[in-house]
């Protein structure tokens, strides 16, 4: 099973073009001594192609978040290596933006919405005068212009997540790492944000790695879906999503291929 997965993921096709990101035989365990040692991720080999929308699904607690944090550089693998455009990842970088699930904790509560977005620009040393038009553009792109001078605590969850996405876009990343970004939002807001993120990533041909436990969300958004099995997490399957773009909340979700993928993924995860 594992051999098969590796072939599908890191096959000859990906080797021809340099992948955006790759993980090679990555494992992660916590705890120093052997009795407490806990293996979280086992032998993950994975390529993220430049410009693709890759979704990773798995049961909760399966190590999806840890995998994403390794891609960002916030967590270092115990063995194996993570590469970004051929370079070994040694720590976090402005080029890889990570959007956290708990948006309320990831925003600076003492800064306004505009101030939170500007943080990314300040960090790269941009002059305040140059920041303003960029912040204004991102505010309107994410539909939060009217909230510009409000504080995160005054906003709804969906709005706060929009602010976080805007801040990540402000750092002009080469890849967007999203950790169950819409998991805590209500269904309507979630669908609206799914479509917005599809438009955003399509516009800029942005590489996205998107973690979710929602199978339908993964199929709806992704070019490919990687399925993680639990404890220790390993890749059990990778599927190519052959659904046409632009995708539509109604017609895409009613497409027989959509339902077939859903059927297959559901079966895979139930077994594990």
């Amino acid at each position, binding site marked *: 099973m594992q051999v098969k997965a590796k072939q599908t993921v890191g096959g000859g096709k990906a080797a021809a073009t340099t992948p955006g990101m790759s993980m090679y035989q990555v494992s992660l365990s916590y705890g120093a001594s052997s009795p407490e040692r806990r293996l979280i991720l086992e032998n993950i080999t994975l390529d993220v192609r430049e410009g693709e929308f890759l979704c990773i699904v798995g049961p909760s607690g399966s190590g999806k978040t840890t995998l994403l944090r390794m891609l*960002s*550089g*916030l967590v270092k693998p115990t063995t194996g290596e993570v590469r970004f455009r051929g370079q070994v990842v040694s*720590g*976090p*970088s*402005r080029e*890889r*933006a*990570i959007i*956290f699930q*708990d948006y309320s*904790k*990831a925003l*600076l509560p*003492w*800064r306004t919405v505009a*101030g939170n977005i500007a*943080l*990314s620009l*300040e*960090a*790269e040393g941009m002059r305040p005068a140059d920041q303003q038009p960029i912040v204004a553009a991102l505010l309107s792109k994410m539909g939060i212009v009217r909230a510009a001078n409000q504080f995160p605590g005054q906003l709804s969850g969906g709005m706060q997540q929009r602010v976080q996405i805007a801040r990540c876009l402000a*750092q002009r990343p080469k890849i967007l790492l999203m950790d169950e970004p819409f998991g805590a939002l209500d269904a309507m807001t979630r669908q609206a944000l799914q479509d917005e993120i599809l438009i955003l990533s399509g516009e800029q041909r942005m590489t996205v790695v998107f973690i979710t436990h929602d199978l339908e969300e993964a199929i709806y958004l992704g070019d490919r879906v990687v399925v993680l099995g639990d404890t220790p997490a390993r890749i059990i399957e990778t599927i190519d999503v052959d659904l046409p773009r632009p995708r539509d909340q109604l017609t895409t979700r009613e497409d027989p291929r959509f339902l077939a993928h859903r059927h297959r993924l559901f079966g895979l995860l139930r077994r594990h």
Partner: protein
Amino acid sequence: MKRILIGSILPALFIASWEISSRTGLLTLESLSRPSDILRAGIAGLADGSILVATGQTFETALFGLAVAAVAGIIAGAVLGLSPVLERVVDPTIEALRPIPAVAFIPLALMMFGFGISMEATIVAYACVWPILIVTISAVKAIEPRLLEVADTLEMNFVERLRKIILPAAFVRINVGLRVATGIALVVAVTVEIVLNPRGLGYSLMLAQQSLRVDIMYAQLLWLCVIGYVLNALLRNIGPASIVLSRAGR
């Protein structure tokens, strides 16, 4: 207003009976002056500027010492709060140094700096640095780790991280430490002046006592009382940290 009136009944009665009993010869203690004399001495001291000069000297030293303690305490506290390893190394030393009364260093400070502002400010700084340091360590430890990860992914350097993430996030708690330290600063400055430094309000107090000007001594005590009250009210409403940090919280 009503509460102030009710609250001032007791002091008014006290002062009145003090004045009456000393005028009628009921009280003849040398350590007691008359409220009317005290008031006169106080007005005279304010009018000739001697009290204000002494106040200026005391404040100058107290604030200087406090500023040194605040900068050192906040930076060291941030570093120790961020590094559990370093904190474990330094913590026993902190706990050993902290309980030493600051005034016990007066002889040593005198040898090092002689009389004057440096000696006094050093003692003040020593006394003030501990509450600031300890509060900052715990405040920084309590910062939401997500925010530090945001700083990581934005590749912020230490100064940026301190200014834009750590200090604003720890602001409320650090402010409490600074308030406590401000109170300590005034107490320690006056103490050092009383013990030996020939400047400021503490020295004026000693001078008045030694020249048996009990009225002046009481007037200055009263003045210290007013200063302490006003300072406390100011700190409660503004807080020193809000002045220092208001620019960071954009």
